[in-house]
C-alpha cells in the first residue's frame, strides 16, 4: 500500500516536471509527439489523483503526506516540497488534469508548450502544497508561466502578470504575519482553529485581509479584475487621456468611442459577433487560465485557509461584498460581449464571485457547496472555450447541452442561493433593542442589509446570465463557418462529449442527496425550485434573449438606444479600466516623472547653485567648490592619509 501511495504521489508531482523537461525538445521533436507525451502524462496524473481519492475513501488512514525534498532550510524556517494528504488537493489536481487534456487537444500552434508545462508544474505544486513555502512557489510560478502563454512572439510583457504580482505580494505579507504568530512553522497543519483562535482578533483580520487580497487578484475579482497597462497604448499615443487599458483575461479591448478602431467595428455589421481580436488571448489559453491556473488555485487557497476566514467576520463580510459586486458586474458585462471567449470569461469570473459569497457565509459546508458547483462549471467552461477554439459550429449540439445546464441555474448555485437567503433571513430575525427601555424590535443590522443586497445581486445576475449565454448562442449561430473540419476535430469532439456527459452526471449526482436505509441506498434529486426563484429568473433571461436575438432584427439597437448610457457602460465594462487608469496608473506615472524632474532640479541644479553661492561668499579660496570636486577629493585623500600616518606614528611612539 505504501509503495502504491508513494508511486501515485510521485506521479502527481513528477509527471508535470518530466513534461516540462520534455518540452525543451520543442523544435527538435515533432509537436505531435510532444503533445501526445504531454497528454499521456496528464492522463497519468489524472489516474493518480483519482486513485488517491479512492484510496482516501476506502482506507482513510492510508494516505499521509509525502515529503519529496527540502528547497530551503533555515533554523525555524523550512520549505519542503511534497504532497499532502487532502481530498481537496486531489480534486483540484483532477480538475487541472482534465482541463489540461482539453487544452492540449486544441493547443494553438503558435503558443509554446514549455510555458504550459511549467505552469502545470506550478499549479500542481500549489494544489498539493502542505506548507506555505511550496504553496507560494507554486502560486507564483503558475501565475508567471501562465501569463507568459499570452505573449505572442516577441511582444512585451502582458499586464496580466502585474496584477498577479500584486496578489503575490499580498500573499507574502499574509504568510509573513501568519508565520510569525503561528508557532513559526510553515506547515498548513499548524492552522488549526485552536491556534488561530489564540491570536488577537485584529491580527486574524489583518492576515485574512492579506490572503483575501491575494485571492481577489488571482481570481480577477473587483477591483483587481483590471490588469494594469502602461501609457504606451494606442489611446495615449493618439493624445487620448483614456489610455488603452486591456483586461486580457476577459478579452476586452476597451475601445474609446470616436476612435477609428471603434468606428470600423461599428461600420462592419459582421463584427457584431466576431472572432476574438488578433492580439487577444487564444481561447484555449483562456481555458487554462480560467479553469485551471488562476481561478481554481485561488479558490483552493480560500478553502485551505477556511479556518482563518471563519475567525475573521469582517474580512468575510468584505469577501461577500467583493463577490456580489463582481458577480453583478460580470453578469452585466457578459450580456454585451461580442464573442464567446469574452462571454465565458466574464461568466467564469462572475461565478468565482459566487464562490466568495458562499465562503463568506462562514460555514464550511455551505462554502464547499459553492466551491463544488464552481469546479463542475469550470470543466464546462473549459469545454466550451476549447470547442470554440477547435471546432466551433460543429460543437453546437454540445454547446446547447452545456448552455442549458448552466443557464438553467446549476443545482449548486440554487443550493447556495437558498443558503444565502436563509442566512440573511436569520440575521434579519435577530431582535435588537433600540434603547434600554424599549421592547426589542426586528430591524436588521448593516450586515443584514448587505446580505439582502447580495440576494438581490444573485437574482439579477441569474437573469443576466441566462440572457447573456443565450444571446451569445443565438448571435453566434449567424456566424459563417470559417474553416472546414479537421482530422483532429473528431478527437476533440469525443473528448468533449465524454467530459460534458461526465460533468452533467457527476454534478447532478453529487448535488443530490444520498440516503441509506435498510432497503439500501436511495437518491433524492437536487432541488431545481427553492426558496430563491433562480430557475424562473434564468428562464426569463432566456426568453428575453430569444425575443431579441433569435432572428436578426433592429430590436437590440432600439433597446440599446432606449437604455441610453447603460448599454455603453455595460459594453465598456462600466469604464472600470479607465477608472483604474485614472486612479492608479496615471498618478503613479505622473508622480514618478515629477520625482525625476524634482530630483534633477533640487539635487542637480540646486546643489550646484549652493556650491556657487558658498564659493562667492568665501571668495577665490573656495573656488574649487564651485568648479568641481577633484581638488576637494584630493585634499580629502591627503587628509585621510595624514591622519592615518599620524595615528601610526603615534602608535609607534
Amino acid at each position: 500500500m505504501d509503495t502504491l501511495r508513494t508511486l501515485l504521489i510521485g506521479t502527481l508531482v513528477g509527471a508535470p516536471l518530466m513534461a516540462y523537461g520534455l518540452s525543451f525538445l520543442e523544435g527538435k521533436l515533432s509537436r505531435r509527439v510532444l503533445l501526445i507525451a504531454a497528454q499521456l502524462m496528464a492522463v497519468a496524473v489524472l489516474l493518480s489523483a483519482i486513485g488517491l481519492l479512492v484510496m482516501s475513501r476506502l482506507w482513510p488512514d492510508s494516505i499521509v503526506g509525502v515529503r519529496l525534498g527540502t528547497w530551503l532550510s533555515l533554523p525555524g524556517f523550512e520549505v519542503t516540497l511534497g504532497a499532502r494528504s487532502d481530498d481537496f488537493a486531489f480534486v483540484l489536481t483532477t480538475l487541472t488534469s482534465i482541463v489540461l487534456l482539453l487544452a492540449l487537444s486544441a493547443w494553438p500552434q503558435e503558443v509554446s508548450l514549455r510555458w504550459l508545462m511549467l505552469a502545470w508544474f506550478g499549479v500542481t505544486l500549489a494544489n498539493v502544497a502542505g506548507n506555505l513555502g511550496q504553496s507560494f512557489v507554486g502560486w507564483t510560478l503558475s501565475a508567471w508561466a501562465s501569463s507568459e502563454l499570452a505573449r505572442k512572439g516577441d511582444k512585451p510583457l502582458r499586464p496580466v502578470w502585474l496584477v498577479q504580482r500584486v496578489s503575490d505580494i499580498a500573499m507574502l505579507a499574509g504568510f509573513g504575519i501568519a508565520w510569525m504568530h503561528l508557532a513559526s512553522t510553515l506547515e498548513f497543519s499548524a492552522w488549526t482553529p485552536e491556534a488561530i483562535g489564540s491570536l488577537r482578533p485584529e491580527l486574524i483580520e489583518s492576515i485574512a485581509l492579506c490572503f483575501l487580497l491575494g485571492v481577489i487578484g488571482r481570481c480577477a475579482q473587483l477591483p483587481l479584475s483590471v490588469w494594469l497597462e502602461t501609457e504606451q497604448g494606442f489611446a495615449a499615443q493618439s493624445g487620448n487621456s483614456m489610455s488603452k487599458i486591456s483586461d486580457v483575461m476577459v478579452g476586452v479591448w476597451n475601445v474609446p468611442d470616436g476612435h477609428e478602431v471603434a468606428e470600423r467595428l461599428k461600420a462592419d455589421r459582421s463584427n457584431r459577433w466576431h472572432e476574438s481580436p488578433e492580439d487577444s488571448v487564444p481561447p484555449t489559453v483562456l481555458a487554462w487560465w480560467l479553469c485551471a491556473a488562476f481561478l481554481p488555485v485561488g479558490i483552493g487557497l480560500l478553502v485551505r485557509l477556511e479556518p482563518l476566514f471563519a475567525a475573521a467576520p469582517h474580512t468575510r463580510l468584505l469577501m461577500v461584498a467583493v463577490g456580489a459586486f463582481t458577480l453583478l458586474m460580470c453578469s452585466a458585462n457578459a450580456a454585451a460581449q461580442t464573442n464567446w471567449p469574452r462571454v465565458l470569461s466574464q461568466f467564469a469570473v462572475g461565478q468565482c464571485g459566487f464562490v466568495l459569497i458562499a465562503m463568506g457565509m462562514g460555514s464550511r459546508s455551505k462554502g464547499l457547496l459553492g466551491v463544488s458547483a464552481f469546479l463542475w462549471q469550470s470543466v464546462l467552461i473549459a469545454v466550451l472555450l476549447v470547442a470554440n477554439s477547435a471546432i466551433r459550429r460543429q460543437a453546437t449540439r454540445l454547446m446547447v447541452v452545456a448552455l442549458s445546464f448552466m443557464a438553467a441555474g446549476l443545482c449548486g448555485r440554487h443550493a447556495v442561493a437558498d443558503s444565502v437567503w436563509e442566512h440573511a433571513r436569520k440575521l434579519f430575525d435577530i431582535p435588537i433593542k433600540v434603547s434600554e427601555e424599549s421592547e426589542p424590535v426586528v430591524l436588521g443590522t448593516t450586515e443584514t442589509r448587505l446580505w439582502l443586497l447580495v440576494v438581490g445581486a444573485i437574482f439579477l445576475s441569474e437573469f443576466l446570465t441566462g440572457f447573456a449565454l443565450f444571446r451569445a448562442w443565438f448571435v453566434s449561430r449567424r456566424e459563417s463557418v470559417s474553416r472546414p473540419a479537421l482530422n483532429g476535430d473528431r478527437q476533440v469532439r469525443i473528448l468533449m462529449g465524454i467530459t460534458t456527459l461526465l460533468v452533467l452526471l457527476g454534478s447532478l449526482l453529487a448535488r443530490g442527496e444520498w440516503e441509506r436505509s435498510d432497503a439500501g441506498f436511495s437518491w433524492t434529486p437536487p432541488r431545481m425550485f427553492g426558496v430563491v426563484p433562480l430557475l424562473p429568473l434564468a428562464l426569463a433571461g432566456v426568453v428575453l434573449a430569444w425575443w431579441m436575438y433569435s432572428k436578426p432584427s433592429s430590436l437590440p439597437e432600439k433597446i440599446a438606444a432606449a437604455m441610453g448610457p447603460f448599454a455603453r457602460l455595460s459594453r465598456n465594462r462600466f469604464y472600470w479600466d479607465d477608472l483604474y487608469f485614472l486612479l492608479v496608473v496615471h498618478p503613479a506615472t505622473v508622480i514618478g516623472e515629477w520625482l525625476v524632474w524634482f530630483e534633477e532640479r533640487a539635487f542637480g541644479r540646486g546643489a550646484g547653485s549652493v556650491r556657487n553661492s558658498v564659493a562667492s561668499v568665501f571668495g577665490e579660496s573656495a573656488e574649487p567648490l564651485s568648479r568641481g570636486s577633484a581638488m576637494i577629493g584630493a585634499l580629502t585623500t591627503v587628509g585621510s592619509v595624514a591622519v592615518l600616518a599620524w595615528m601610526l606614528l603615534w602608535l609607534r611612539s
Partner: protein
Amino acid sequence: MWDTLVRPIREHLPLWLMLLPVCSAVLVGFVRLAGAAAVRQTMLVNLLLSVALSVWLVVAYEPLKPATSQEEAALLGPLERFQFRDSFAWVGETRSALVERLNRRGERRVIEVPAQWGPNIRFAVGVDGISVWFVALSVLLVSVGSSLREPLRPNADGRMPMAVISTPSVAWLWLQASLVGTFVALDVVLFVACWMSTLLAIAWLMGSGGDSQRHEVVPRLLKTSWWGGWLVTLGLGGLVLVFGWLRTSPNPAVSSLIFSIPELIAGIGQLTVAGENAFLWGTINVWLFWLLVVGFTWPLGLAPLHRPFVEAFASAPRGVALVLAGALLKIGVYGWLRFVAPVFPDLLHQHSDTFTTLVGLSSLLAAALAFGERDWQRRIALATSSSVGLSLIGVMTQMTEGLTGGLLRVLSHGLTAGLLVWLLPRERVGSLFQAAANDDRCFADEFGGLKKTPDPVTLRRRRLVRFALFAWIGLPGLSGFVAEFVTPFGLFQHEFNAAALSLMTSGLIAWMWVRADREPLDWSRELWTRRDNFVVAALVTLNVALGVAPQFVVNRLLPSLMSALPVQSEHSEVR
C-alpha cells in the same frame, strides 16, 4: 603531488586570489612589448585562473569545521569561522629585546625576550562564510567587466595603440586585487587600504573610458566614497584604540593594540560585558557606532544621496558600471555585516526601527525615481540603489531570515545586474522609441506603437534581458526569488513598516521593469560573439542555480552569520 602542488595553493587561496592579479599586472608590463595579443592572452589566463580559484575557494570552504585549538574556540567560537588564513608582519614587528633582571641571588642578568615593535598591523587575509561569497561575486564580475571593454580604435597605421590596451588591463587587475583584498582582509588597516584602492582603480578606469560627463561625475563619486572611507577609518581606528584601552595586557612587551578583525570583533564583545569596561565602552561606543554607520552607508548610493552613484554608473563604460553596481557598491553592506552588526548589536537594536524605516523609504524613493525614468542605464542604477537598500534592511533586522535574505539579494543583484549591463547596447541610443526618429525600419503600427522586425541577435538579446528582468523581479526558479521570499519573514518579525515598505518597493520595481520591457533597446548595431555565449551562459546558469538550489549558498553562509550576530531565535517573543 598533493603536498607539493595542490596543498600550497589550497591552504592559501585568498592570498593567491590577491596575488594572482598583481603578478598578472607585472606580467602585462613585460608582455606589452610583445604586442596586444600577448596582453589579451595574459588577461585571459588571469581571468580563467581567478575564476577557477574562486570556485575552488567556495567549494573548499568548510562551514562547520571545528576550531583547531582551545584558545581559538574560547575566543572565536567552537567553529573555525575564518579559514585559509595567512598573516605577515606589515607595520611593526616582533623583535628580541634585552632586559635586565635580578635573579634569586641578587645578581643582575641580561635576558633576551620577544617584544613588539610598533603597532601590530599585519597583512592578514582569510575568508568566512560571508566574505567567501563576496569574493566569488567580485571575481566573477571583474572577469565579466574586464571582458566588456569597448571596441578599440586602431592608429592611422592600422595598429592598436599599446597604451590603450595595456593601461586599462593593469587598472582592471589592480581593481581585482583591491576588491578581493577588501573582502579577504582580516586586518583593519588592510581593509581600509584595499577599499580606498578600489576607488582609485575605478577612477583610473573611468578616466580611460566612459562618456564625456565622466570628468564631472567621477570626482563626485570619489568624494562621496572617500568621505565614507575617511569616517570608517576614524571609526575603526577608534575601535582599535578603545580595545587597546580595555585590554590591559599584563605583559608590557606585548602590544595592546589589536588590528586583527576577528579578534577585535570577538574581543570587544567579551571585554565589555560588565564592570568598568562596560561603563567606558558605553561612553565611547555611540561615537564609534555613528562614525561607522555613516561611513558605511554614505557610499551605498541610497536615495536621496544616490546622484553621485547614478551619474557615475550612467557615464562609466559598461564594464566598469557592471563592477560598480554589482560589487563595489556592496562594500558598504559588507561593512555593516563585518563591523556594525557584530560590534554594536545593542545600539543597532536600539536604532534599528528608525534605520529600517528610513532605508525602506529610501528604497521606495529610488524605485519611484526608476519608475519615472526613461533611460535604461539610469533605471538600472536607481533600481540598484533600491536593491542595495533592501539588502541593508535585511541586515539591519538582525534576524536569520532577514540577514540571509539580504545576503542572497546581494548575490542575486550582482548576477542579474551583471547580465543586464552586459546586454546593454554599446552605443547609448536609448530605447527603441528614442531611436525611432532616425531609423526608417521603425514604423507606427495601427495602435500608434512601434513595430519593427527584429533580427535574430536583437531577438536573443531581448529574451535574455527579459530573463534578467524576471530574475531581478524575483520569479520562482530564478535568483531573485529566494531573497524576495525569505526577507519579508525577517522583516515582519522586526518591524511592520519596514516590511510594508519593502513589499511596496518590490511591487513598484516589478511594475517599473514591465514598463521598461515595453521600451526595448536598439541592438541593431550589435553582434553576437563567442564571448557573449560564454558570459551569458555563465550568468544565466548561476541565476538559475541560485534560484533552484539556494541551500548550497545558505549552508556556507549560515554558520558565519549565526556566530557573528546576536540572532534572536525566539523571534515570536521579540514583538
